[in-house]
């Protein structure tokens, strides 16, 4: 397993290299000058600009520029945000916890809901309960998350007043207290549900179908013949089998979260990485943009790796060496 993991991590390096080349190329191709933020905008003196371009190495051949960027990048120096005027790493560190919190909550909600509904529907297929859940799923799959998000704010925040409409926490609370954490959860719950809506729907549907399919398997008949209670058959024998393919989705989850966070965070004014990304694109904050793009790609690779490893852990038929 360890060997496998190491091999996979090594395998990620060329991929990351390629991605970094693409990211760098994209940044160069973006409108405007990717590093113009470093140049004092007051000074329109062409001589000064030329001098600064020289100083910043913008006149070097592209491969030299790339080499410099990637060297710094690998050493953890992601540059300085041209908009926030602070090191990109600090900026990301500032926002990261929020996004992680959002992502983890979203995953937890997704899986809890998907399991609850999927198991219910899978056990009682073609009953009204199943149809209801099925209907919910189809809408979950069909309603774009931004529509759901805007609706959620209007309904739950403004009409019912149940949830806050912005932010990640009530600023007046003492950090670390119970109230603080409750407030954090209170703020994150709706964006998390909206973020997980699509996954919830598809996992529920997947789980339901898989449970139905598995319940027709021979080993289920064996378990019945052994006198195993129905409940245990579903909750242990079938579930364990149905969970395995779900694990592979975990890799996708990270992608979904990355993509979804961009929209969700914008709608809920939730200050996280997604919002930062969006503003870096619109503000042409290249150091942030490039770092985040690299980071997201890395996360996707990592997600796939984790999924594969978990798969090996959960499914005894898979050997990872």
């Amino acid at each position, binding site marked *: 397993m360890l060997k496998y993991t190491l091999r996979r991590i090594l395998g990620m390096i060329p991929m990351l290299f390629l991605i970094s080349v693409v990211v760098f190329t994209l940044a160069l191709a973006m409108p405007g000058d990717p590093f113009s933020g470093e140049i004092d905008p007051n000074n329109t003196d062409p001589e000064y600009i030329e001098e600064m371009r020289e100083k910043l190495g913008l006149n070097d051949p592209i491969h030299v520029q790339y080499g410099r960027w990637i060297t710094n990048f690998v050493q953890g120096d992601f540059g300085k945000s041209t908009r926030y005027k602070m*090191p990109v790493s600090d900026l990301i560190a500032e926002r990261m916890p929020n996004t992680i919190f959002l992502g983890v909550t979203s995953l937890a909600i997704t899986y809890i809901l998907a399991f609850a509904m999927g198991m219910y529907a899978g056990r009682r297929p073609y009953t009204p309960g199943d149809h209801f859940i099925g209907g919910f799923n189809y809408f979950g799959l069909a309603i774009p998350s931004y529509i759901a998000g805007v609706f959620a704010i209007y309904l739950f925040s*403004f009409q019912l007043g149940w949830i806050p409409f912005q932010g990640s926490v009530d600023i007046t609370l003492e950090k670390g207290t119970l109230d603080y954490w409750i407030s954090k959860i209170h703020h994150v719950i709706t964006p998390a549900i909206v973020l997980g809506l699509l996954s919830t729907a598809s996992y529920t549907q997947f789980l339901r179908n898989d449970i139905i399919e598995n319940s027709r398997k021979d080993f289920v008949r064996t378990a019945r013949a052994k006198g195993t209670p129905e409940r245990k058959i579903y909750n242990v024998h079938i579930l364990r089998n149905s969970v395995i393919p779900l694990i592979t989705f975990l890799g996708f989850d990270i992608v979904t979260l990355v993509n979804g966070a961009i929209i969700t965070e914008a709608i809920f004014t939730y200050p996280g990485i997604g919002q930062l990304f969006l503003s870096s694109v619109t503000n042409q904050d290249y150091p942030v943009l490039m770092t985040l793009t690299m980071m997201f790609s890395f996360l996707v690779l990592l997600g796939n790796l984790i999924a594969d490893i978990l798969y090996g852990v959960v499914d005894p038929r898979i050997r990872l060496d």
Partner: protein
Amino acid sequence: MKNKKSLYWLLAMLLGLSLVVAACGGDEASDTDETDNTTDNTEQNDSTDTNDTSNDSDENQSDSNEPKKGGTMVFGVDSEPEGLFNWAFYGIVTDADIISLFDEGLIEYDENLKPQPNLATWETEDNKTFTFKFKEGVKWHNGDELTVHDWVFALETIAHPDYDGPRYANVQTIEGAEAYRNGEADSISGVEVIDDYTIKITFDKARVNNLTNLWTYPMNRTAFEGIPVAEMSGSDPVRRNPVGLGPYKVENIIPGESVELVPFEDYWNGEPKLDKIIVKVVDRSSVLGALENGEIDFITVHPSMGPQVEKMNNADLVTYPGLAYYYVGFKLGKFDNESLEIVEKYDKYANKNLRKAMYYAIDRETWIDAFFSGYGKPVNRPVPSAHWIAADDSELNTYPYDPEKAKQLLDEAGYVDVNGDGWREDPNGDEFVVKFSHYDVGDPQYEARAKALTQYWNDIGLKTELDMVEVNLYYEMIEKDNPEIEVFYGGWGTGADPDPSALWKSDALWNYTRYDNPESDQLLDDALDIDIVGTSDEKRKDLYVEWQKIVNEDLPMLYITELEETVAVSKRMGGMEFAVSGWNNPVEWYIAE
């Protein structure tokens, strides 16, 4: 900001600002809309003097109730702050709004945009050397007493070669600043400390607007101790623990979403009445809902939301004069960035009657009603009415909506439909298509209002094509005289100093139309020349009025509108007042209920 920022840096910021706006594609701020290239309202959003009774400021929130103590005010901002909470470093209006809650400057501006003493008074004989006397006993939030050294510190920071903020233009005119910046001197020679409360500033030459352009925000020295200038913008005293002089002090900051402010007991100028001010970032789509539910007590709203706010039971819409104007510009030439001169003249829109016809074709009243809910009015000059130099409309051509006159002008100028396709050809009989560009930030309303303008021109027989250009690209293209840009929509914001030179002189980079008129250049120079105008505002104004008449007749751009600032204020708030210079000192604010 109050003032001290010269128009110059405002313009400079424009570049930065256009970036801000771009951000709005995603999390659009309601008013970024207009702030985009109008260097934003930063200038206005400042506390005006407490003594400064708001005579003509629009509405007055103060009920007859006595100001009460206590309560938490939620102060909404509609875009995410960048977190640069220091006058010397901030880049966007949101940050400036927040700074103005906890910090203030040496001078401030009244409703006529004339400087008034705040923390310091000044004297000058010749508009070259100024002597400032600081109030004694003014405390910083960290307990330090304010002295002139804090100001010197600020000036030297901004003039420092490593300084990465956009304010250098505000110290550039001090004698010796250039040398200091180039590392040729250890201090700025024009800054002379006399004692802890007295300081003398000498400029490189006498100008009428030296004071308004001067940087007047001290920085707390202790807070920044040991932090090299290059690292200041990312440092704690800027981002996390700002130290100010204002009635409220920063208690807690959650980056990107909220700021908590609490009263500063040792405030020099009265007793803050609120227990707390919470600044919250509100997505544009949530603004009305949040107001209606009483979740926020104050927020700047886009004019189009005005009517909705007016209908609300728990909030009032307050409007006050703005300092921005919007225009449709014509590229009349090409500018050379190296030699700083106009090197080529274009013919396509050179005909003044063509431009006039296009002006008469626009129904500005209707257009403003439609796209800005009527919170604005047509302007006929590149100076907002709130400015003291603004010429009265009676002295100018007003170009009312008159399509018939427009057609007649075109006929006279030779733009007639010769091939019968319904569109006018140019005097040579060649196809004539007006190419109109507008910036795009992803808001469909921008496209609609631009489209509406093209329709006006279509209606008088001028075939017009609309091109929506991504906002970042847009300003770059305009500035570089990209041939794709012919007729363009834009806006400028002005600061306290009325001098329009940076936008209008033929050697100015931001003279986007490449308007080249020696008479205009001369008038603009004269208005700043101390030998000509002396210290008389009247004389200065007369020159500017002359100048406005010229550009009103020449029409290198069609002046479309100036907008009112629109803010929503909860009915439970008391003591909030607004004038062209922004809102009053937060120390006056209270919760009436």
